[in-house]
């Protein structure tokens, strides 16, 4: 694909664009779904194509085609230029780009198990074994009524060239596995889930131990049968690391994406250097962590990934940048521009985002955090969240929870959501643990695109969080 993208870049130059980048992508995916003892949905997908982004004067144009044929790729150049020219007269915020350090590199991340090396039958057998182990957790008249184990793997090859001289070849693979069990006591239904995801391939199937995966998911579903509905109102809340991860991703991370800040939509606009969080809070986004689901070596504009500070000791120190937002903020690109595939423009995205654990000298142990709570809620098993960056309002959903009474873990609670304002909750963190966990692989959505991410942190304690329960105490 090198020749193709180089040719298309040269063509764009000859057409007189101010800047162009070209991404040629080939992707393959496979998925296996095991349900109720049967592998009954096996799927594959493959796609390839080219995306051409041009800057003409003040305006961007972007065109894509599902082909790697030279003729189609050349047509994309003309289409993209026409698109830019059609909108240029109405652009009020002219596009700019930071100085680009041209990269010529190959970034190939080979999975331990190469694509196709593990037979489909072996994968099915492993998934069936996990499912069987999970179902065996049921007892005492409590039944698993439905179980779904899914595995999916995707691998890609991508070649990027731009008119500044970058030529970057990359390839890699990601794999995910999910276990979902639904349990009943004859009256109610409850679900339990577990997710795993890696940068890698079918080695994930060999790494997963059923006790920590499918059995745990089944046990969550069974345990939830004994849980009562959560109370409603404002509580001091103890966040499990998975909830901490959701918090820093949803509540903070999306607000720190510089495209949202530049667009005037983020509540963090104009707050660089300000103390926006408790001094115990430091948050980073790091795409260089080996094996984590959000990791990558170069972003979709060819900027190397890195560890990016967002908050240090409570102070907002930086945003996440693309080439364009870096220019507009007079900052350095942070390697945060990611595109889902050839037919998408790069957007500013997170990678692996986490709240830094406190040091052993300042960290508050979990038991001590709990001792400080007369009546509160311990939220576990982070599931999902979303945010309105314009309002700084977010929601996080926990799959499990417990009451905290007089500093002790109390009654189990069903799944429940919390909501708050970002700047409130960051200020209301009054204890940060010295533990750490980042096991929240997932696909983050933004403007119709998905990006693999991870998030996590230590246990933290937060005052005055609104809990969306079903009754008042």
């Amino acid at each position, binding site marked *: 694909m090198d020749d193709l993208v180089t040719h298309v870049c040269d063509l764009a130059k000859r057409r007189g664009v101010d800047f162009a980048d070209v991404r040629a992508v080939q992707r393959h995916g496979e998925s296996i779904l095991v349900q109720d003892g049967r592998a009954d949905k096996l799927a594959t997908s493959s796609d390839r194509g080219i995306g051409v982004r041009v800057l003409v004067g003040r305006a961007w144009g972007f065109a894509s085609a599902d082909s790697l044929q030279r003729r189609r790729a050349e047509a994309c150049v003309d289409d993209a230029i026409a698109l830019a020219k*059609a909108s240029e007269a*109405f652009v009020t915020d002219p596009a700019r780009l930071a100085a680009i350090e041209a990269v010529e590199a190959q970034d190939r991340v080979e999975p331990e198990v190469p694509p196709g090396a593990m037979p489909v039958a072996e994968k099915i057998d492993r998934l069936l074994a996990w499912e069987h182990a999970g179902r065996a957790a049921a007892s005492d008249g409590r039944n698993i009524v439905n179980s779904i184990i899914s595995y999916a793997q995707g691998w890609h090859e991508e070649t990027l060239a731009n008119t500044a001289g970058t030529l970057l070849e990359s390839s890699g693979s990601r794999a995910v596995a999910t276990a979902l069990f639904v349990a009943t006591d004859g009256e109610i*239904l409850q679900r339990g889930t577990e997710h795993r995801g890696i940068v890698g391939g079918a080695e994930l199937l060999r790494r997963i131990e059923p006790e920590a995966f499918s059995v745990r998911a089944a046990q969550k579903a069974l345990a939830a049968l004994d849980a009562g509905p959560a109370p409603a109102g404002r509580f001091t809340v103890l966040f499990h690391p998975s909830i901490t991860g959701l918090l820093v991703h949803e509540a903070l991370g999306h607000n720190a994406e510089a495209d949202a800040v530049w667009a005037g939509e983020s509540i963090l606009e104009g707050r660089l250097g300000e103390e926006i969080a408790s001094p115990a809070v430091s948050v980073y986004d790091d795409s260089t962590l080996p094996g984590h689901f959000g990791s990558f070596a170069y972003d979709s504009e060819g900027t190397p990934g890195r560890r990016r500070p967002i908050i240090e000791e409570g102070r907002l120190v930086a945003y996440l940048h693309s080439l364009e937002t870096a220019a507009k903020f007079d900052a350095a690109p942070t390697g945060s521009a990611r595109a889902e595939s050839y037919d998408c423009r790069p957007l500013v995205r997170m990678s692996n985002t986490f709240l830094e654990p406190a040091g052993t000298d300042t960290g508050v142990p979990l038991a001590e955090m709990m001792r400080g709570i007369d009546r509160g809620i311990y939220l576990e098993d982070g599931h999902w969240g979303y945010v309105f960056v314009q309002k700084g309002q977010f929601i996080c959903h926990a799959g499990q929870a417990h009451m905290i009474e007089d500093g002790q873990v109390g009654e189990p609670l069903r799944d429940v959501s919390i*909501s708050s304002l970002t700047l409130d909750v960051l200020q209301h963190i009054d204890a940060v643990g010295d533990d750490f966990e980042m096991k929240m692989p997932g696909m983050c959505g933004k403007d119709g695109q998905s990006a693999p991410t991870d998030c996590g942190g230590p246990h933290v304690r937060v005052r005055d969080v609104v809990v969306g329960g079903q009754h*008042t105490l």
Partner: protein
Amino acid sequence: MTNEELNYLDLARACVDRAMAAGAEWCDVAAGTARDISVTVEKSGIKSADAGRGEDVAIRAFVRGGMGYAAVTGRDRQAIDDAVDRAVALATEATADPDFRRLPPPQPAPEVEGIFDDAVAGLSVAQVVAIAVANIEAARDMEADVNLSGEVALAVGRGALASSTGVALESRATEVSAHLSALLRRGDDAGYFYEFDFGRNLADCRLETVAVGAVEGARRFLGAKRIASGRRTLVLGPLAAYGFLGHLVAAAGAESIQRGRSFFCGKEGERVADACLTLVDDGLVPRGVRSGAHDGEGTARHPLTVIQEGRLAHLLHNAYTAGKAGTESTGHGTHTGGISPTNLRPALGDRPADDLLAEVDDGIYLESGEIRPDPASGDISASIDFGFLVAGGERVHPVESAMLGGNVFDLLGRLDAVSSDARTEPGILMPTLRIRDVQIAGSE
């Protein structure tokens, strides 16, 4: 050969033949092409203009009931043949499934008027940009400092479906939309709202004035205040009600019920809501955004009453779940094997939304927001994203940091009114709902 010249029905039939020759016992293939244009608005200006074009072929093969599925983009014939072979190979590896009965046979499909619009298909990039610019100007005329963002977009597609049972269908469709949000900042206060319009026909839309609704909404949501916790009447405006009812209809998909994982398990024919609720799913509404003559498996669509005066009357079936249940598919199958609702049309009540609100002494009016029951337990724990405190029948002020909680059956049982008026989008009806005695969590 240009994209417009390829005969997708011939391609789909050829793929079916290849799959059957390779050992598939049943097979269907969807093939088609789509192109799209989108213009992005940011910071009350044009950010970029994008265009894309693609072709897809998706093959579903069955061996002893096990399903293999392969999807491929582009028109490279070798890649398509490889995908067909992979689908058959995967079906062979899948576990036998005795619950699979058959794929749908050919059947007369009704004509659905207004699915394709030459006016949409003929829109140029400059015209899409002009729609976006009209919105920017309209928004600025209302509030000079408004921050408008969003997208104006169109999609044009055509395709075919062929199967080993003899299904041979061709279709084409258009869709055009504007999704815009307006943000107003007044000191530390922010008012934000989102508005949209969409349709299959340009004449059904008012795309140039979507921003007006967004700015009006942003004005309404200035001055949000915290509220105390308590039990209150909840009024769901058209957008919030549509989202909530959409989750109900999706939960009536037969697969999740047959598998035992839905809060609707064991409820078929039972009372699940107050008798004021009747919900019809109708995929045949002329010009409807989710209308079509047939579903993704080739089954002819027809209107289906999902909830009849509070009773769960009918489930949504695809070919697999219908075969398992010994009934007929309701025409809600997707080509990937799932089940998907179409146009949602609740039966309207006898009093307008304003009258329903006027009777609320202490309540919350949720203009827009996600009320998503847990698919298994039916528990609800949702943020009041765009809501107002209601007192004495009036919306008093927007609320911040508030949530609502309950169980889906509690809420449906306390539903006491559906409005006689409704927001309409092509094919879709969105009335207002009123629910008594709902737990609200506040932060005051």
